[in-house]
C-alpha cells in the first residue's frame, strides 16, 4: 500500500512538473503539422540565431574540452600545492548566477574598463560581440568536461602510461595511444554535457550580448524575444527545437555514461 502511494507521488510529480509542460509545447508546435515548424525556423532571423548559437557553442566546447582534459590530467596525475583549491575554483562556475557571470565579464572586458578599453584600442570588441558570448558560455560550462574525465582517469591508474613511457614512448604518444582511448567515453560524455549547456545558455549571454536582433541573438534569446513580441509560433518552434536537442543529449549521455561510474562515484 505504502509502496503504491510513493509510486503515485513520484510519477504524478514528474508528470505535472516535467512531462506535461514539455509535451504540451511539442504538441502545440506540431499541432498543425510540420509546415509551420520548419517555416518558423527557416526565417532569416531564426537561421541567423542558429548560426550565432553554433559559432559560440563550437568555440566554447573546443576551449573547455582542451582545458578540461588538461586540467583533469593535472588534478589526477600531478602533485602540487593548492590542488584542492584548484579543484574548488574549477567547480566555482556552478554556484554563480548566469547574470552575475555576465556582469563580471562586463566589468573586466567592457569598453569602460581599463582592460576592455585596451582591447578596444586594438580593435577587439569583446562585450556585445562574439568573443564576450564565447567567454560567458565557457564560464558557465567550464567544470563539465573536467568533472566527467577526472573519475575515469583516477580509476584507470597510471600503470599503462608508465609502461609506455619506460618502453620509450614520448608524452604525446603516451597520451594519444594510452590515455585518450582510456577516457574516450567519459570525454564524450563531458563534451555532450558541455555542448548542451552551451547551446542552451541564456542568462549570461543575455547580459553580454546586448541582445541585438540579427546580430548577437542566439537561439535562446530568439525564443524570449519572439515570445515577448507575441510571435508565439516562432517562440514555440525554437523552444521545441531546443527541447529536442535536449532530449537527444539526454539519450546520448545515457549511452555514453559508463555504468560502473555510478557506484564508483
Amino acid at each position, binding site marked *: 500500500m*505504502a509502496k503504491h502511494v*510513493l509510486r503515485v*507521488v*513520484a*510519477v504524478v*510529480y*514528474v508528470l505535472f*512538473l*516535467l512531462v*506535461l*509542460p*514539455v509535451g*504540451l*509545447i511539442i504538441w502545440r508546435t506540431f499541432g498543425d503539422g510540420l509546415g509551420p515548424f520548419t517555416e518558423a525556423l527557416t526565417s532569416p532571423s531564426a537561421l541567423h540565431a542558429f548560426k550565432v548559437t553554433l559559432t559560440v557553442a563550437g568555440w566554447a566546447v573546443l576551449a573547455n574540452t582542451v582545458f578540461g582534459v*588538461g586540467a583533469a590530467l*593535472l588534478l589526477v596525475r*600531478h*602533485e*602540487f600545492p593548492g590542488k584542492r583549491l*584548484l579543484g574548488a*575554483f574549477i567547480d*566555482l562556475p556552478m*554556484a*554563480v*548566477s*548566469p*547574470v*552575475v*557571470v555576465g*556582469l*563580471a*565579464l*562586463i*566589468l*573586466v572586458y567592457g569598453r569602460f574598463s581599463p582592460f576592455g578599453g585596451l582591447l578596444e584600442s586594438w580593435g577587439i570588441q569583446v562585450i556585445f560581440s562574439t568573443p564576450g558570448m564565447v567567454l560567458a558560455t565557457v*564560464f558557465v560550462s*567550464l567544470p563539465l568536461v573536467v568533472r566527467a574525465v577526472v573519475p575515469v582517469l583516477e580509476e584507470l591508474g597510471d600503470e599503462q602510461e608508465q609502461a609506455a*613511457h619506460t618502453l620509450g614512448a614520448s608524452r604525446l604518444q603516451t597520451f594519444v595511444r594510452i590515455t585518450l582511448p582510456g577516457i574516450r567515453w567519459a570525454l564524450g560524455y563531458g563534451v555532450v554535457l558541455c555542448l*548542451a549547456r552551451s*547551446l*542552451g*545558455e*541564456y*542568462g549570461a549571454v543575455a547580459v553580454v550580448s546586448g541582445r541585438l536582433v540579427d546580430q548577437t541573438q542566439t537561439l*535562446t534569446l530568439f*525564443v*524570449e524575444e519572439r*515570445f515577448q513580441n507575441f510571435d508565439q509560433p516562432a*517562440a514555440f518552434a525554437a*523552444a521545441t527545437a*531546443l*527541447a529536442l536537442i*535536449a*532530449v537527444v543529449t*539526454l*539519450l546520448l*549521455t*545515457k549511452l555514453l555514461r559508463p555504468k560502473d561510474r*555510478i*557506484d564508483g562515484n
Partner: protein
Amino acid sequence: MTAITVRPSSRVAGGTAAGLGTAVLYLSLIVLIPLAAVVWRSADEGPGYFWRSVTTPDAWAALTLTVGASALVALVNLVVGTVIAWVLVRDRFPGRGVLDTIIDLPFALPTIVAGLVLLALYGPQSPLGVNLAYSRAGVVLALLFVTLPFVVRTVQPVLLELDTEMEQAAASLGASPFQTFRRVILPNLIPAMLSGTALAFTRAIAEFGSTVLISGNLPFKTQVAAVNIFSQIEGDNTTGAAAISTVLLVVALVALITLDVLQRWGSRRG
C-alpha cells in the same frame, strides 16, 4: 645511465608547472578576475553605498523572495527527491526506466525553454485552468522544475549501495516498516539528502532564465534577485548590481561550505 633515471622526474615537474600555469591563467581570465571585479566594484563607493544598494526596497524584496522561495524549493526537493529516488531504486513498474531517464531533462533543457513550457501549461492559456503566471507560486514552480534532479541524483547511488540485509534483520526482529525506515535506512541517506538539498538551494538562488517569462518580473512581488541584477545592469547601475551579486555569491559560498562539511561528515560516518 644516471641521466636516464633523473630526466623523467624533472620533466614531469616541468610539465606540471607549465600545465598548472596555463590552467590558472585560463581560470583567472575567465572566472577569477571577473568575479573579483564584481566584489571589488560592489565596494567601490564604500560600505554605506553597498548597504544602501542591497537594502533599496526593490532589491531587498527580490533578495528575501529569492532566499525564501529557494529554501521552500529545497525543502520540497528534500522530500519529493528522496521519494523519487526511492521509487527508482526499490520499486518495479513499467515506465520506471523512462522515469529514470527524464529526471535529468531539467539539466539538459535551456532555462528559457523551461520557463516557456511551464507558462504554456500553467499560464493564462492553461488547458488545466490553472494560471500561475505573474505570481510567486509561478516562481516556485520554475525553481522546482530546474532543481528536480539534484536530490534524486545524490540519493539514488547511496540507496543502490545500501544493503537490504539490515532492513530484513530489523523487520524479522519485529520492526514496523516505518521504524525500519527511520532507524535503519534514513540515517544512511541523510548526508546524501542534505548535500542534494544544498545543491538545489544554490541553484535556486542563482536562477534567472526559467523565472523570466513566468514571473513577469514584477518588482516587490515576483522579481527574483538575478532578475533585479539584470534590470540594474540594463539601467547602468553596475555598482548596485555588483552589490546584490556579491550578496548572492556569499550566500552560495556559505551553502557550499556547509555542503562540504556535510560531505566530510557523511564520508566519516560511511
